[in-house]
C-alpha cells in the first residue's frame, strides 16, 4: 500500500449511520482509495440541524459545541451529505456568534470540513477509474448546491467512472424533503416529490443519483409507492458500484 496522504475523520450523519450503513462503507472505501486513512470518531452525534431549523436555537448550540469538540483535532473532516455539511460549514459560526471561544473553534473546524465530492475532487485530487458505462440523471440536493457549491464535483467524478448524466428538467429544484417539513406538511411535500420523480423518470435514465440521504429516501420512497422502476443511489454508491451486488443494479 502506498503511503497515506493524511487522516480523514468521517462525520457519518444520522441517516447514513442508521438507515443506510452500506453507503457509509462506500464513502469509506472512496476516501481510502483516494489515499487517506479514515477515522470514525466514536463520540459523534447529529449535527444539530433538526433543532436549528425547529427554532430550538439553544439546543442547536449545545449540539454544535459537542460536534466541534469531537472533530476539531482532525486534519480533515468529510461528510457525505450537503445538508449536514452545510449545517456545520455554513451555519455553525453564525449560530455560535455570541460564544467567543466556540465561535473561534467553529472557524477552525469549518475550514477543514468538506462535503465528500468536494474533498475528493479538490483536496484529494481523486481520479476514479473507469468502471462501466451507465446513464443516470442527477438531482442537485439543495443545501449542497446552495450552501456548499456542490454541482460539478459529483458529476465530474461520475463521468470519469463511465457515467453519462442525462439532465432532467430543473435538477436544482427541491425534492420536497426538507427535514421535518415532509411530515409537517406532507401534502405539499408529496406534490413536490411527485413532480421531481416524474421529471427524473422522463429522462429514461437507468438510475436517479443524488448526494443527500434525505432527498434519496424521499424520492426512492415516492418512486416505490408509484410503482416506477427507477432506482435511486447516492453518488458514492455509484462510484463504488463494483462493490454493489448485481441485483441492485439490474
Amino acid at each position, binding site marked *: 500500500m502506498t503511503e497515506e496522504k493524511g487522516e480523514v475523520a468521517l462525520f457519518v450523519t444520522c441517516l447514513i449511520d442508521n438507515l443506510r450503513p452500506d453507503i457509509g462503507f462506500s464513502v469509506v472505501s472512496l476516501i481510502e482509495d483516494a489515499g487517506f486513512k479514515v477515522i470514525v470518531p466514536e463520540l459523534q452525534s447529529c449535527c444539530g440541524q433538526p433543532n436549528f431549523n*425547529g427554532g430550538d436555537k439553544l439546543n442547536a448550540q449545545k449540539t454544535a459545541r459537542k460536534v466541534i469538540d469531537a472533530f476539531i483535532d482532525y486534519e480533515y473532516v468529510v461528510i457525505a451529505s450537503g445538508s449536514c455539511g452545510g449545517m456545520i460549514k455554513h451555519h455553525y459560526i453564525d449560530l455560535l456568534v455570541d460564544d467567543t471561544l466556540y465561535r473561534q473553534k467553529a472557524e477552525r473546524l469549518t475550514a477543514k470540513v468538506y462535503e465528500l465530492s468536494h474533498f475528493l475532487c479538490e483536496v484529494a485530487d481523486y481520479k476514479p477509474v473507469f468502471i462501466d458505462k451507465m446513464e443516470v440523471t442527477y438531482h442537485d440536493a439543495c443545501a449542497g448546491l*446552495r450552501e456548499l457549491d456542490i454541482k460539478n464535483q459529483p458529476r465530474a467524478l461520475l463521468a470519469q467512472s463511465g457515467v453519462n448524466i442525462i439532465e432532467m428538467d430543473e435538477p436544482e429544484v427541491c425534492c420536497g424533503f426538507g427535514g421535518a417539513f415532509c411530515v409537517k406538511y406532507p401534502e405539499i411535500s408529496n406534490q413536490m416529490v411527485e413532480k421531481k420523480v416524474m421529471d427524473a423518470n422522463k429522462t429514461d435514465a437507468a438510475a436517479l443519483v443524488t448526494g443527500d440521504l434525505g432527498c434519496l429516501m424521499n424520492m426512492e*420512497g415516492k418512486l416505490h409507492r408509484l410503482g416506477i422502476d427507477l432506482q435511486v443511489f447516492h453518488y458514492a454508491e455509484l462510484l463504488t458500484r463494483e462493490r454493489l451486488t448485481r441485483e441492485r443494479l439490474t
Partner: protein
Amino acid sequence: MQVNSKDFIPLVNLALDNNSLQASLGMLGKGLSFKRTAAVADFPEFDQLRDEARDIKDHCLQYLDIYLMKFEEQVTNKGGHVHWASNEGEAREIVLSLCQAENARTITKSKSMVTEEIDLVPFLEDHGLDAVETDLGEYIIQLRGERPSHIIAPAVHLSKSQVADTFFDQHSNLGFNEKLTERVDLVGEARQVLREKFLGADVGISGANFLVADTGTIVLVTNEGNAELTTAIPETHIVVTGIEKIIPTLEDASTFIRLLARSAVGAEISAYTSFITGPRREEDQDGPKNFHVVLVDNGRSEMLGTELQDMLRCIRCSACLNHCPVYLSIGGHAYGSVYSGPMGAVLTPQFSRLEEAKQLPNASTFCGRCESVCPVHIPLPKLMRHWRNKEFEAGLNPLSMRWGLRAWALLNRHPLLQHMLASLGIRILGLFGNKATGYIIKLPGLAGNWTKDRDFRTPPSTTFMSQWKTMQKNRQKKEV
C-alpha cells in the same frame, strides 16, 4: 392587515386540489424562472449590481430618518405634501380625509401592495367612495371580490376562461354582452371600461417603487401604463407607500430599475417607468394640482436594528415567489396574506401577529432558492428561521415537537447512548417492513405522514457505527 393564515392547512388542501390553479402555477414557475435565467445570463453586471443594491439599501436603512426627512423637504419644496402614518389605521384615515377634502367621489388606483396591506380600497368603499383598481390583474380580482395571489401578478391564479366569465357577469350592465374568449379582446374590453373611469376620476392613488430623497421624486414601474393615467389625469394624486422605499439619488434608481424587471419577469426593463416630482408646475401641460405622499410605517421601523432589518431591503420583485417550490405548489391565497411566498412568510408575522401567521415561516424546506435569486440578497431562510426561533421561545409550537427536539438534543450530548438507542430503534423499525419488497408501507404516529404518500425502505438491522466497531475490533485481533 387582514390575515387568515391560521387556516393555512385547509387552504393548502384546497389549492392542491384546484386543477386550474395548478395549471397556472406550473406555467408561472417554468416561464418566469427560465426568463430570469436568460435575462441574467445576458447581463454580466447583474451580480455586481445586486451587491450595490444591497449596499445602497443597507446604507439607507442605517440613515433612514435622515433620508426620509430629506425626501419630505424636497416634496414640500416642490409644492407637495408628506403625511406620516405610523400604522394602517392612520394611513387609511389620512387617505380618506384627503379624498373628502377634495369632495372626491371616484378614485382610480394603480397597483400598490401597501394599499393591499392596509386594506385601503374596502375602507374607501365603506365610506361611499367609488374606488377602481386600474391594473388589469387588480381590476379582475376586485370584480371577483378576491385578494391578490401574487405581489406583481395579482390574478395569476385565474385562467383566461375564469376571467371571461367574470367580465361577462360584471360588464353586461355596462353594455358588453358578448362572451369573449381571446386574451386581446378581454384586455380591450377592460380598457374601454377603465377609460371612462380614468377620465372621470377625482383622485388617483398609486404606490411607489422607489422614493428618491435627493429630489423628492417617486419612481413608478409598471407594464400597462395605467399608473400614468391614474397619476396624471385627476386633480389630486395620492401616493401611498412604505418608508423603506427610500433611496438616495436618481443614479441609485437606475441601479434598482436594472435589477427589478430582470428579477421580476426576466425583461431588461418594464414597459413604463415614470419619475414623478411634485404637482403640476405652471409651465406643465398636465399633472395633478395636489400631490400627497403618505409614508406608512406599520411595523417597519420595529424591524430596524433586528435580524429582520434585512427584509426592509425588499423591492417587491417577486423573484422569491416565482422560484419557491412551495409557493409554486400552493399559490398565494393559501398563505392567507397579501404577501405570500418566502417574502410573505417573513413579513406576515411582522405585519400581523406571530400566533396568527406562525405556519408560514414553517412551511419551507429551506431549499434556499429564494435567497439565491433575490436581487438584494435577503437571507430569506435565515429570516424564516428567526420566526421559528421566536415561536419556540414563546412556546407556540406543539408540545410533542418541543419535547422531541429536547430529547434529541439530549441524546446528541450522549452519543454512545444515542448509538445504542438507534440500534434498537432501527430493529423496531424493521418490524414494520415487508420482507418481500424491502419497504415499509405504513408507519405509526407522525412518521405516518411519510408513509401516507411514499414508502420507506426497511433499514438493515445493524447501524454503520456498530458494524464499524466490530470491524475495528476484528482488525485489532488480527494485528495482535
